[in-house]
């Protein structure tokens, strides 16, 4: 009475449920690993950029380097984009000359807000999928189980001598569906919670950086 035996003997609907849950589990693990790699890279990139930014390097030079890099490697993600969008807008507005400092700062802030929300979107990709798997797959598994148990009890009703051995295999195979649902849901839920926390922290870090950068640019305008 191996697991394989139980699965192959299950009814078609229960098998479908199991297949769905298996696919969901595979996909959620793809997301988990991919997001893990992505968020790890984003955190590392943010630290590196902050180090470079606060090292006292000339902002024009830093902007030039990043733009060069973006052209070569097809654009990097993260807080660099916020910096580049803000600095580009600031330079453009400053070169026009007619604008006063408030207009320049407003435009810069708007550009950075747009970049920020883009970055936020990038960070949040596929987290809703993980959340859905985490919350729905136990129910799907439970549905498979209920269906399987229903069938096995219906079979029991037709048997004259009802023993535990007549229902036990049916219930066992039905319970596999619940087990698979939980198997898919638990990692997805853990990953979702962890990644949501990371995304939250990253977002607030980006916002903080944007504020700081904005204040630096403000000071520069006042100095001019």
């Amino acid at each position, binding site marked *: 009475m*191996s697991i*394989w035996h139980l699965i192959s003997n299950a009814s078609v609907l229960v098998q479908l449920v199991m297949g769905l849950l298996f696919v969901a589990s*595979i*996909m959620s*693990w*793809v997301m*988990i690993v991919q997001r893990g*790699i992505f968020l790890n890279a984003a955190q590392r990139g943010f630290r590196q950029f902050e180090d470079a930014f606060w090292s006292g390097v000339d902002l024009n030079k830093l902007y030039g380097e990043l733009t060069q890099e973006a052209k070569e490697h097809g654009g990097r993600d993260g807080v660099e984009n916020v910096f580049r969008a803000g600095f580009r807008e600031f330079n453009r507005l400053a070169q026009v000359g007619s604008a006063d400092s408030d207009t320049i700062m407003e435009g810069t802030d708007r550009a950075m807000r747009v970049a920020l929300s883009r970055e936020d979107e990038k960070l949040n990709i596929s987290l809703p999928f993980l959340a859905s798997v985490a919350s729905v797959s136990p129910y799907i598994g439970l549905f498979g189980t209920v269906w399987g148990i229903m069938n096995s009890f219906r079979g029991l009703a037709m048997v004259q001598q009802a023993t535990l051995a007549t229902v036990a295999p049916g219930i066992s195979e039905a319970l596999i569906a619940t087990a698979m649902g939980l198997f898919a849901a638990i990692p997805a839920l853990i990953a979702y919670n962890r990644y949501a926390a990371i995304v939250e922290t990253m977002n607030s870090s980006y916002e903080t950086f944007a504020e700081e950068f904005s204040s630096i640019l403000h000071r520069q305008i006042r100095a001019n």
Partner: protein
Amino acid sequence: MGSFLSYSVAVLVSLALHLGLLAVLFVGWEPETTRVMIQPQYIEAKLVELAPKKVVQPKAKPKKPKTDSAKQKREAKKRRDKLAAQKKAKDKKREQERLKALSEKQRLEALRLAEEQRLRDEQEAAREAERKRLETEFAEALAAEQAEINAQEDERVANSYRQLIQQRLSENWSRPPSARLGMETLIRIRLVPTGRIVGVNILTSSGDTAFDRSVEQAAQKVEQFIELQGMAPDLFERKFRQVDVAFSPEDLRL
């Protein structure tokens, strides 16, 4: 570029993880198939027969006349033997007389005939008596057998009632947790013909007061065996005025 790489890595990792899981499930994991048979819980309360002598007695009865008849037979045989001996002696005497005086033969012949007639009559009478005695004996045995059959029938009816009592008591018996295998409490239930229980007392205690109390409560909970009302009054008087029931938990493992 970077995202494509991270996705392909993620897909590979995920597939490897799931294939590994499947491999573990189908190769390494087998549930132990030793079957453990667990007996269902049930309670047995068996009735203790009060007076088994009654069943034995009718069996003993037919024996007595048999021994009597054997004695009588022996006596009859003795008598017959004796008669035969007498006859032989007389014959001898007659032979001597015949040898001595042939003239007297006629008279002696008549005498002998008379004697023989008398003997034959005697034997006839004895046989008749024997036959009569056998007949009465047979009738007695028949009556005894009938009584035995009746007793068996009674016993069968009584057994069905006993089973009923037992079942009713078992249903109403809730054992305390302190019940252990091997405990036995014998109670005597006194009944009236309506089937109502008028008294319960413990004959032998199990040693555990909670257990004894549960047994007593089982009997009190039953209150009345309504089915006993349909029983023949004499059967009730003989067998169900007092019923002894032994309670013992036979399904427990400790």
